[in-house]
């Protein structure tokens, strides 16, 4: 124990000094203080913008997001100044997907953009969250890409399939096999990092890969003759992408979060309007470093959800068209695959009330 604490001291001693450097403003708190409760405790630096300042209480809401069209779309709201307009101070924090969940678990951000399933996984490690908003569901961006010669799911029998075990596309794969009357016993699953899907398929080490965009697209492009034999269009609603909020922050700042929900609906309406497609693609592609045209392809595989969509998919139900049904399926999957041990109370991870309230009081 002494050794460990000595080591911990040695590791974090620099931080004490680092805190003295002039840094971006958000990290001024000394480590001990910032390790405490994230949302309410730190006093507001009151840097909220002019007109909105009177309505905004507390520090900016920090939202961690990562590279997925449904989430990159938040940049539209930021670039257009819609958060300010709505009177809510938001900071978007650009992350890798896994580190974004780490930051959320550590209480360093108030909300994180995740899939409904990964919200459960994060919750199982002691960081509960509440999904207040559905950004989109995957509609084609998640794929099973098979090399040439494999035309149908039935052909997968006895074949090797690369997939990142325990993450969403593992679920997609099992659903796909189920639809072809196969199980995971009939194939050989090869663990793989999703961002290496293209190389893995090309190397010939596997016969198919399950991955999401842009990795699935890269696999299709770089392995000539390969085809997508199953995609999330076959199971729309299996993978919902949500805004998962820290319950404490939600309780303390409910009014602000409702404004965030309304801003999202504005973004969704903007994207869905044909004449805005170029503008939207321009902003979103700039975030990830693609050309707008290349990005439109990825947007096509994402079913962005507006207010009507959110109301529809937040209705309770057993099927995949309800986020409740989807979460139940994901929960069972996670338990079965030992991602976590006991079933989660997935209903506590979903809160349609902000969407409802937003729909009643139109902006």
């Amino acid at each position, binding site marked *: 124990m002494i050794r460990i604490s000595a080591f911990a001291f*040695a590791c974090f001693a*620099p931080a004490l*000094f680092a805190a003295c450097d002039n840094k971006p403003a958000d990290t001024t708190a000394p480590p001990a203080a910032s390790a405490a409760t994230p949302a309410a405790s730190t006093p507001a630096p009151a840097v909220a913008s002019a007109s909105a300042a009177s309505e905004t209480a507390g520090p900016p809401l920090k939202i961690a997001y990562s*590279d997925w069209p449904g989430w990159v779309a938040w940049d539209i709201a930021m670039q257009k100044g819609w958060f300010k307009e709505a009177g809510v101070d938001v900071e978007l*924090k650009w992350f890798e997907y896994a580190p974004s969940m780490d930051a959320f*678990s550590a209480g*360093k951000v108030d909300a994180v953009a995740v899939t409904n399933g990964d919200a459960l996984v994060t919750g199982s490690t002691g960081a509960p969250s509440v999904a207040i908003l559905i950004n989109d569901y995957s509609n084609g961006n998640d794929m099973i890409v098979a090399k040439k010669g494999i035309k149908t799911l039935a052909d997968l029998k006895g074949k090797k399939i690369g997939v990142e075990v325990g993450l969403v596309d593992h679920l997609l794969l099992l659903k796909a096999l189920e639809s072809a009357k196969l199980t995971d016993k009939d194939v050989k699953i090869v663990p793989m990092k999703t961002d290496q899907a293209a190389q893995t398929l090309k190397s010939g080490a596997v016969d198919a890969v399950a991955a999401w965009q842009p990795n699935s697209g890269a696999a299709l492009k770089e392995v000539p003759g390969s085809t997508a034999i199953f995609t999330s269009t076959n199971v729309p609603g299996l993978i919902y992408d949500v805004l998962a909020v820290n319950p404490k922050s939600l309780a303390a700042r409910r009014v602000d979060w409702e404004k965030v929900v309304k801003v999202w609906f504005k973004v969704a309406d903007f994207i869905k309007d044909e004449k805005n497609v170029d503008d939207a693609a321009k902003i979103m592609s700039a*975030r990830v*470093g693609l050309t707008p045209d290349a990005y439109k392809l990825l947007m096509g595989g994402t079913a962005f959800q507006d207010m009507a969509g959110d109301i529809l998919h937040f209705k309770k139900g057993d099927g995949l068209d309800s986020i409740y049904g989807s979460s139940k399926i994901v929960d069972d999957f996670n338990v079965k695959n030992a991602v976590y041990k006991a079933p989660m109370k997935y209903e506590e991870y979903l809160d349609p009330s902000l969407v409802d309230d937003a729909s009643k009081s139109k902006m």
Partner: protein
Amino acid sequence: MVPPSSAVRGGARTRISEKPRWFAVRRDVPSKARPWFWIGAFLIPLALWSIVSYVPWIWHPLVLVTDVGDAKVQGQFSYLEADQLVDKADFVGRNAELAAAHAKLAQGIPSNPIFLPAPHQIARAFVTAFRTPPQLAGDLWLHQSLLHSCQVIFWGFFYSALFGLPLGILCGTFPPLARLVEPFVDFVRYMPAPVFGALAVAVLGLGDEPKITIIFIGTFFQMLLIVANTTRAVNGGLLEAAQTLGASNRQLLWHVVVPGALPQLYRDMRILVGWAWTYLVVAELIGEMSGISAFLYQQQRYRHFENVYAGIVMIGIIGLVTDQVLGFIGRYLFPWETGNRQLFRLFARLRGRRAPLVEAAGQPKPAPSV
């Protein structure tokens, strides 16, 4: 090989001075030729890379399809599309199919995989990357990102040296301390620094602190051991000589060990800075993505490998320049090893010029020891 008698005595020596041999054990290159070797060190890999990239019959395992030929002909390889990179065998197979059907053949150019872009592509990507303005409000120019990366490296290495140098020197000087510290450091240094990423974020937040900490963890423990070993290598004869003259522990440390080890420690630090850079890419991806690594990672994800290599080249250039500058400074720093007293003479002259001022200011305090 050489007859031992006359050759060893002077004969061999004169022969060598007449005609310099390039490959003799431990004989350095003549100083005039050294810059050429330096340039060659870069030109040779560049030439090899160019050959692989530009000479079509060397490697080039793929074919970039420019014209698919008669697309109506069905066959095993009919999936060919324009602008597609296909295996050479598949391309040949397709043309065999087309030939059998007496249809128009497919055209293509031999190509390398996208993982190996040609030098000119990377040069172009390099320039473009710096000239592209940030697309979104609040984003940074690439040179700003690079500067940010350099700051992270600097602080990570600074704190590592701040603790590592003194502790390492003490361990190298006082064996009891070494026996107490080094086993644990040996144990920790095998731990992969990146796995502390989530912990660092949990404790230190999203800013630069967790990144600096990862670099610190990555370099500190190695540094401590290297510094200790370098300190141990200080000539024991010097220590004995000082001891016979009655030097105290403190005098031995400050007047023998530290000056004895410093020149080599400086060289160690030059190598260890490179070590810090290797952790940068992992460090910058934890917390909020930042710096050159955010650029590298994003470009890699979308498979723009020319940009990825351009980014790698940038890091290489920064490293090389840092090292050369440090090397240049190093030539003037340790006159007791190099015999180069220029810097010290410069200091002495500066001090000499200021001397009257110092005297004037110091008048009320006459030296008590006199």
